[in-house]
């Protein structure tokens, strides 16, 4: 087949092309995010309202160890916001599927991992923005982390990694749902028990025994506790909890990422 005139190619190998493809798709997703500022604004408004709601409406009714509810609350809000943010991974993919853009991508010689890699990488960037925003809002309403700057950043990385693991699960939802609305509807029943039956907003000791058994051992509680341990220390210090959280996140990535990529490949 020497007479086939292939187009010229950028020098590189399978690995560098994969990285470059992921970068191209990430950039495209971030441009989309920037060009729809209204979506960014309203999706930021919701966690801010949660902060205000719990800080000023529920705080007085929820006794917590250590006394400062806003300190207790903020790590929970961070994790909750990122969990719900993972819905946008599902929605983004469902939309690309619906418009036919993924069909065009599938006919290109690009890496089969790039669509999902680019989606999740862009969503990690969005989460970094969310952490910055909520940190500012938290400080404005009296959040005073006592664990030190290094531990605060470590907690941020830990939470970002957890959200990253979760995204791969939502990528599968996005590729399975017929449209963006269905993707969103499929996500809520998963996220509600995980975020609310957890230590994010109230100490789990206040829950009935059977619920505690679930709440104490599920990954959101573990990651919230790990973030608290790092951000606040003192009362909330839990040796070993960080490793538990990392193990969950790593488990999510190792199990869900290959499943999602396989799902993308098999969609043909």
């Amino acid at each position, binding site marked *: 087949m020497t007479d086939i005139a292939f187009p010229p190619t950028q020098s*590189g190998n399978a690995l560098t092309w994969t990285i470059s493809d992921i970068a191209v798709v990430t950039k495209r997703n971030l441009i989309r995010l920037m060009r729809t500022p209204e979506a960014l604004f309203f999706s930021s408004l919701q966690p801010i309202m949660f902060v205000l709601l719990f800080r000023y409406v529920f705080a007085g009714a929820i006794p917590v160890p250590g006394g400062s509810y806003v300190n207790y609350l903020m790590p929970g809000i961070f994790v909750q916001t990122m969990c719900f943010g993972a819905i946008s991974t599902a929605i983004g993919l469902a939309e690309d599927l619906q418009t036919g853009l993924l069909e065009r991508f599938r006919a290109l010689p690009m890496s089969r991992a790039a669509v999902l890699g680019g989606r999740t990488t862009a969503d990690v960037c969005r989460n970094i923005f969310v952490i910055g925003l909520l940190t500012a809002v938290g400080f404005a309403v009296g959040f005073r982390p006592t664990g030190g700057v290094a531990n605060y950043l470590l907690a941020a990385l830990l939470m970002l990694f957890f959200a990253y693991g979760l995204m791969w699960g939502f990528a599968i939802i996005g590729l399975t749902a017929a449209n963006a609305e269905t993707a969103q509807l499929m996500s809520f029943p998963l996220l509600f028990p995980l975020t609310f039956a957890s230590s994010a907003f109230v100490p789990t000791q206040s829950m009935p025994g059977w619920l505690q058994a679930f709440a104490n051992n599920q990954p959101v509680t573990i990651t919230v506790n790990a973030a608290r341990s790092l951000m606040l220390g003192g009362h909330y210090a839990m040796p070993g909890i960080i490793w538990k959280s990392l193990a969950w996140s790593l488990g999510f990535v190792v199990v869900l990422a290959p499943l999602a990529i396989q799902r993308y490949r098999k969609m043909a």
Partner: protein
Amino acid sequence: MTDIAVEARGLKKTFRKGQVKALDGFDLTVRRGQVVGLLGPNGAGKTTAVRALTTTLRPDAGTATILGLDVVKDAAKVRRIIGLAGQFATVDENLTGIENLEMIGRLNHLPHGFVKQRTEELLEQFGLSDAGSRSLKTYSGGMRRRLDLAAALVSSPPILFLDEPTTGLDPQSRLGLWEVIEGLVRGGTTVLLTTQYLEEADRLAEDIVVIDHGKVIAHGTPAELKADMGATVLAITTDSPEQAREASQLIADLSPKAPHFDGNSVELTVEEGPPKAAEVLRRLDAGSIPVVGLTLREPSLDDVFLALTGKPTEVDTEAVTQSSTARGRRGAKESS
């Protein structure tokens, strides 16, 4: 040896666990430099055929090659030599024209400098230079379709697949796009085009393949297909649909093919026009059916299509909007 650009042999694909046969033994041969029109009603299997040939859908059975490369085994290589422009402009409306073309160029792994240069060239060629740095949200339907086609051409692919390139476009934009496609063909590009518009196939394609129910039901040049139809179409116009029906009963035996109604008119395909026309007038006069008009004309591809599939080709706007809203993965799979 690789004079054959696209070849499909016995392609089969079913959806919904075998309930929907989208392709049912589909065969196709496209020689290099040829423009072949794949024609068929909604749901005939046109899009499924294009998806199988462009590696985005794995056939259940059969084989297909692009310039001798197998679409399943050599999919990665095939993707480097094909361009695909979709039924719906699959460009990203949040990006600018330039950003869209550069993204596709980069994902084709073309050299960076080459991508920049090619992007400029294409925008110029498609009359989009001024709109290049604007968001697609400001583009008209025709402009989007041109950009979609430009995106398929970034890598200058020798084989181009156009899946209903002008569906939903206004006549002027359609004409503009036809001229662009004709230019590409003059430059030596091989084109496989699916369409529901016979006028489009008649103008652009040298060879026409008619498919229905996932199978090829006719194949030939537009002239050959028309010749197969019989020499002349005889159209009679009466005063009312009822009269048209009566008239058709009186003249049905003049042609082996069944007459076709359209409002007050009846059309009949006959071998010899003038003598049959005289006979028709005699019979209708005897039957006291007033004849408002009578015309004899060469058959159009529409007549061919109707005769072959039993379905007229007109796409009502409702059908177009329906399929564009049912654009989910499932919708896309099953709509044809």
